[in-house]
């Protein structure tokens, strides 16, 4: 089976599992899956950047832009449907990154990381100082329907959950296709040797620009979904710790497969929930120990477990 088809089938199987598991899951678990998938989206964008040789410590900027755009669309413009809001979130992030990207695409390595961090902290500062957007408190977001179904009761209980699953599925398959395309293959080429990319007739800067816009779109969609699931947005979404968490998820998950960030985000959220439940005072210690274990024993990320197994069976 060809690798893109295998990935697509894997994502389809995951989507089916989420659909079948939904009626069995308690509310808190549904919420946990939604939040994981939303973070997974942002981390999948980072996977693309990492493959291009860049790490952004400012993906929270696009995450927050998507979340606030969705919130404003609901509260000010009466956009009711969650699917549309997720799309709006992605578009808002794309618009912001299309402008900032003009500058960011000129930088590499630590300079790119620090500049992206700086931009995200500027947004944080702006949000905190904007009474219209609720300053430090943010504001509530109440989504009414998802794909036309009223949220809340009956099947509507699974509205945002279904939305998150479908968006993650579409984004995952599309990103995998992109990375295997003629254009997507330029990402590792730019990471390895920009001079050669230029001497093959392509612009390394344009590749970086395109990939950072795609990464922003994913983070924006993730932010909008988080806003719908939590029912609230606040400036913390743009804060550097949020961005740092995405980097964490991306690196701990591994970058070998586009499925890795989604799985990694889910495992980390699960671990966090259980650690919080069973060790309310020392849960950070549990998280830290687990992360240390991943770094020590799975240096290529959680996904390398699958890699190793596949190699063993071949």
């Amino acid at each position, binding site marked *: 089976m060809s690798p893109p088809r295998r990935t697509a089938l894997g994502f389809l199987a995951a989507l089916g599992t989420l659909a079948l598991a939904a009626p069995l899951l308690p509310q808190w678990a549904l919420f946990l899956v939604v939040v994981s998938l939303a973070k997974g989206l942002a981390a999948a964008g980072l996977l693309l950047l990492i493959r291009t040789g860049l790490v952004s410590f400012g993906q929270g900027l696009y995450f927050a832009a998507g979340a606030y755009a969705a919130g404003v669309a609901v509260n000010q413009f009466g956009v009711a449907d969650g699917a549309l809001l997720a799309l709006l979130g992605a578009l808002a992030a794309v618009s912001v990154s299309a402008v900032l990207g003009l500058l960011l695409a000129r930088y590499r390595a630590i300079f790119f990381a620090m500049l992206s961090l700086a931009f995200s902290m500027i947004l944080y500062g702006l949000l905190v100082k904007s009474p219209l957007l609720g300053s430090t408190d943010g504001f509530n977001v109440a989504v009414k329907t998802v794909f036309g179904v009223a949220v809340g009761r009956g099947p509507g209980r699974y509205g945002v959950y279904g939305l998150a699953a479908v968006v993650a599925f579409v984004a995952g398959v599309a990103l995998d296709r992109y990375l295997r*395309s*003629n*254009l997507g*293959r*330029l990402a*590792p*080429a730019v*990471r*390895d*040797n920009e*001079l*050669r*990319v*230029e*001497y*093959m*007739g*392509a*612009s390394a800067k344009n590749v970086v620009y395109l990939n950072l816009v795609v990464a922003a779109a994913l983070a924006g969609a993730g932010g909008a979904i988080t806003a719908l699931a939590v029912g609230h947005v606040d400036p913390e979404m743009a804060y550097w710790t949020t961005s740092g968490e995405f980097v964490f998820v991306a690196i701990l998950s591994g970058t070998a497969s586009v499925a890795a960030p989604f799985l990694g985000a889910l495992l980390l959220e699960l671990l966090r929930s259980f650690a919080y439940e069973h060790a309310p005072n020392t849960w950070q210690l549990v998280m830290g120990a687990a992360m240390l274990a991943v770094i020590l024993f799975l240096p290529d990320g959680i996904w390398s477990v699958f890699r190793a197994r596949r190699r063993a069976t071949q």
Partner: protein
Amino acid sequence: MSPILETVGLTKAFGAVTAASGINVSVAEDTVVGLIGGNGAGKTTFLNLVTGYLKPTAGTVRFLGRDITGMPPRRVTRLGICRSFQIPQVFDSLTAYENLLVGLGIVFMGRSAFVGSHLGQSTPEAVADEMLSRFRLSEYRNEPAAVLPEGVRKLLDIAMAMAVKPRILLLDEPTSGVSADDKFALMDLVLGAIRADKVTVLFVEHDMDIVRRYTQRILAFYDGKVIADGEPEAVLSDREVRRLVVGEGASAGEEATC
């Protein structure tokens, strides 16, 4: 026949150092030209000026009659001027096959932008495998470029330049880092693969035996100037060239191996 590549008064100064001064060169299509000269004579600077990596202080570069002075490398490449490097510039984490696929994919995406695209109806994947076998790289197909022997990396570097379908190919010391015994085999292979497509070749070389055997014309560089330009035997027996480039007293063969 009108020249494929022409430079007029090409000059490059780095502060007080003049790396190229008033270079006038005219290269006819479908020929093999050798560039010789000692270290710092300005051979690589000349390649860098022609491909747009460096912007000349003065002078013009014309390709098929068109002024391309100051164009960036990617536009020069798209017109059909490609190069290989003295130190191979490959994508280390990608396999030999993927290295070629990157270049072929670029050509595939911008077919109209590249002159004389060679993909036709075939896919980049098929052309990549065909090129691997033409350059005898098939056995390294799935090896990451980082672990390949230096000679193979050199060959891959040249194959990558060929992947973007040049009209003229500039090779910067294709045989450096290759053992003396393998040099002729390498040049046979490379020129065989390149000349099948009637690509014009300019190559920088220190081994006078190689230059004598494979070129139809030689440009001798010294101190940023072209001091001799003509048939190989004429240039190699030129008094100035023997004194300044080959090294008086030393035979060409000895010069080549040191």
